[in-house]
């Protein structure tokens, strides 16, 4: 294994300065971090690599399965476009894994129970190491081994793949075609880059509160469809760390869907088709399908607020021209064009109102009201309906970034989004890793009693440990602003496990309890 050699080299160097996690303040801006002697050249190269990695990150949400090309990169990430890169250095990363990453809960989530099962053991993980090497087909029998290996490798991020019929680590010993994916959560990926042609505020990897609303809308629409139409209940939405969101549908029925059924769902939800050259991209038949009707109702207020007011999408002549090309009536278009040409800079809201106002005055013409209404509905959908990266959803073997890892570019944690309060979610205030580490320090400073023992132990991310000994000690994550997110994740898992358990027999429950006790010693 050539990769492990490389990583071992780096991990030993971390062990040398294992004390560093206590001093996270220096890690926030590694450029200034004090270079000590021989470390300097190494640090510099690491910096360059991380930057590369960060570029690559532009596309982190489009991981391709091994069968197709490995990574895909968005077009033209010219340097001017890039926001100032925030690099997360290896020590900070390691400290995060040691103290904050909820390994045990991630395990329970994927294992669908407490006793280690093939659901977890045969699950593929893919690690992206600090040197950009990409390790696929990793698997771990238990949460502890999982944690140990992640600490050893200290990956900059890792992804979750499907559960296979055999242990994916053994794939070389199996004949070709022997290793088959059995199940994976049904996943969806929303990425703001797909909205570049309709958002005026930011481009590429940048986001702001204004354009995040597009993701909020998408989450609402997709979530409603998955719950009401398909009857799924356990849907976990996760912020992807920069400018998108992922959905993990964890119902057993969803996990076991074969690829063609996944494709069917993706097709059901997919609406805005066609590339830049396709002209009118939404052409729905009437009457509207109930799903479309519901989506339209959800999206209408957003269209008014976001597209017309916040983004002011149609203010420029080019976009206004595009709007006109989507309207059905030539006479009306001509009138509108004349009006808008005479008043450059007319706001989108006024333009949108003009359409109706002018249409009314020209009743005699060929235009009938229903075609205009339909066209306007199509426009609303084209400018607001979720743009999913459907390739991600179609294939079981597609890998998707795990929740709670750190986005290497922004340093933010990929936290779950509580869909009930999706409106309140602000991606820009999601805790970032250095902030979290300093929060622990602040807390420890304010509560000196328990602090000393904990910092040396670094066992923060393993729950239950302290409970078992009877003395309730706060875990590190509870001292930080990550707490509400992990609490939400826990409640999500609890709901999922409850459903899993009802399917199993009473007896297996008993054995499970015996085993958990035995695991404690």
């Amino acid at each position: 294994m050539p990769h492990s050699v490389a990583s071992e080299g780096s991990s030993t160097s971390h062990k040398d300065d294992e004390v560093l996690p206590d001093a996270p303040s220096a890690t926030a801006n590694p450029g200034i971090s004090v270079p000590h002697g021989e470390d300097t050249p190494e640090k510099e190269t690491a910096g360059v690599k991380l930057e590369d990695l960060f570029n690559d990150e532009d596309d982190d949400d489009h991981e391709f399965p091994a069968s197709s090309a490995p990574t895909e990169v968005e077009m033209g990430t010219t340097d001017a476009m890039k926001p100032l890169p925030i690099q997360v250095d290896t020590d900070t990363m390691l400290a995060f894994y040691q103290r904050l990453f909820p390994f045990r809960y991630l395990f329970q989530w994927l294992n669908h129970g407490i006793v280690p099962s093939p659901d977890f053991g045969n699950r593929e993980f893919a690690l992206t190491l600090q040197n950009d090497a990409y390790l696929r087909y990793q698997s771990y029998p238990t949460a502890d081994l999982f944690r140990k290996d992640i600490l050893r490798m200290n990956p900059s991020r890792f992804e979750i793949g499907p559960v296979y019929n055999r242990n994916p680590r053994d794939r070389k010993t199996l004949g070709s075609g022997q290793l088959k994916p059995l199940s994976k959560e049904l996943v969806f990926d929303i990425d703001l880059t797909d909205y570049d042609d309709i958002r005026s505020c930011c481009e590429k990897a940048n986001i702001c509160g204004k354009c995040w609303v597009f993701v909020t809308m998408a989450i609402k629409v997709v979530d409603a469809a998955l719950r009401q139409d398909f009857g799924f209940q356990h849907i976990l939405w996760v912020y992807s760390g920069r400018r998108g969101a992922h959905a993990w549908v964890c119902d057993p029925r969803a996990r076991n869907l074969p690829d063609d059924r996944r494709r069917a769902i993706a097709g059901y939800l997919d609406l805005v088709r066609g590339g830049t050259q396709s002209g009118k991209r939404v052409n729905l038949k009437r009457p509207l399908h109930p799903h479309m009707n519901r989506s339209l109702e959800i999206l209408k207020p957003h269209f008014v607020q976001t597209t017309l007011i916040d983004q002011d999408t149609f203010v420029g002549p080019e976009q206004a021209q595009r709007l006109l090309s989507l309207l059905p009536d030539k006479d009306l278009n001509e009138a509108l064009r004349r009006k808008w040409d005479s008043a450059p800079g007319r706001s989108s809201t006024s333009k949108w109102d003009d359409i109706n106002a002018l249409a009314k005055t020209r009743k005699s013409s060929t235009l009938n009201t229903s075609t205009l209404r339909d066209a306007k509905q199509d426009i609303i959908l084209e400018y607001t309906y979720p743009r999913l990266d459907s390739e991600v959803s179609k294939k079981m073997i597609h890998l998707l970034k795990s929740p709670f890892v750190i986005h290497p570019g922004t340093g933010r944690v990929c936290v779950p989004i509580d869909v009930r309060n999706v409106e309140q979610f602000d991606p820009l205030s999601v805790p970032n890793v250095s902030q979290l580490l300093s929060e622990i320090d602040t807390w420890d400073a304010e509560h000196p009693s328990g602090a000393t023992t904990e910092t040396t132990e670094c066992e923060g991310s393993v729950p239950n440990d302290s409970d078992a000994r009877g003395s309730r000690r706060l875990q590190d994550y509870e001292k930080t602003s990550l707490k509400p997110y992990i609490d939400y994740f826990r409640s999500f898992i609890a709901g999922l496990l409850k459903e899993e358990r009802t399917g199993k027999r009473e007896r297996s429950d008993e054995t499970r309890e015996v085993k958990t006790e035995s695991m404690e010693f």
Partner: protein
Amino acid sequence: MIRQEFHRIDPKRRANLNYKKQQFATPSFKQQDYPHRLNFYDIPPTAEITLEQFEQWAIDRLKILAEIEACSYRNKTPDETKTHITPLLQKFLPLSSNTSSRTGAVDPRLKERQKDHYSHFILRLAFSATEDLRRRFARAETMLFRFRFQEVDSRERRAFIEGLSLDWESVSEEERQELADNLVTATPGLRRAAEESWYKVDWEKVPELIERRSVFLSKGKAYVPEREQLSMIIAEFTTRLERALELTSRALPRLDEDDRLSPILNHLSKNFGSAESVYSEGEGFVDGAPITASSIDHLSQHFPLCMRSLHTTLRKNNHLKHYGRLQYTLFLKGIGLSLEECILFWRQSFKGFTDDEFNSRYKYNIRHSYGDVGGDVNRRGRGYPPYSCQKILNDSNPGVGQTHGCPYRHYSAENLIGLLQSTGVHDKDVLRGVREDVEKTRYHIACNRVFEWAHKAEIKRAKEDGSASAIDLDTIVHPNTYFKRSYLLKQAGKSQRNP
């Protein structure tokens, strides 16, 4: 001394087993009586047939399947396929309905159905060996089944479906009234919910309808009108067939030592041809053409529209998205651009990237396409074959900002015409023809129309001097064929002008 008793039977079982009789007893299977014209092929045939029948029946069925497959590759509409297939079916694999009059002593229908049944299972054996064959077989069989299902009259259809015992829950009157609005809006071409009787099934059973969003869906149940039965039946047929093929493939090794059937089966599976991969390696290479990274710009005048638009986009943006790169790289590979030259070509085209960026992000993909890296299979197969029109047409639509695919299919009519005009196609008749073709979803015809227009002088000359046979004048169904033919025609034209 040890006496070996080879035929010794476990004493416990001896009482009810007479091995002598058992060995020579003729197996008594239930003879199938084929009550329906359609068959789900759940029960394998058991009666004896001769080897000649075995082979003949299989070949007859194979002819049908190959034709069906060919129709789908040529993008024929269901109606065209029907007119094409019907006479062939009559000839090779007739199946008369229950209502047809019986003649002669032995019911001919029984014979026909037996042949249908047996030939299906023979081909199952022949095509279960590899994943690829299984998939193609299942697809062709499904198309055949769909075709036949549509032919049958409704009474026979109903009888057949009842015989299948599928777990469909019918929707009660109250529920139907409650959901009437949703049912009507969700199901295209329906005015009142009361017109139909409705079934409630798990949505997984009707993926086609879900994907097209043409059925009402609530809490994981799809509300399917009776006339959409087809979709459900077909889905059921396909799943059962796929599962059965999987099982057959596992049983296949047991046939290894059989020297009567194996050769026939092998022969059959080879004869299924590889219509899908119409492109064989090296086919698109043009001898003597200087194909290097720097000549691509010049050669791009011979490219089909799909590649040409990729090329223009690349030159305009100095970048292409992943699928665009893939489609274009494979095409370039197909015209004979070497790996080194190809890497050079992309490197030069991606202005604004440093060497490091280029190497870390793009180089691997290019090498992967050439089979230079990647898994064993990929390397042995020298990467993927260049995409055929079929693949380009049917693969996923280009999304926002993507430029791959077939312009005839994926562009709106206005943009398509604009693109054509920008490549020098101004002839009004041609443009009108293209517009009509595209409306009828005959994309390859449109593409060929443009080709014929652009090369009409050369084609005419080639026909006159008889070299037309050398340059095949079939319909083009592969971008690389387009290039090769275009290039050769123009070269021939040139050499004639300046001998």
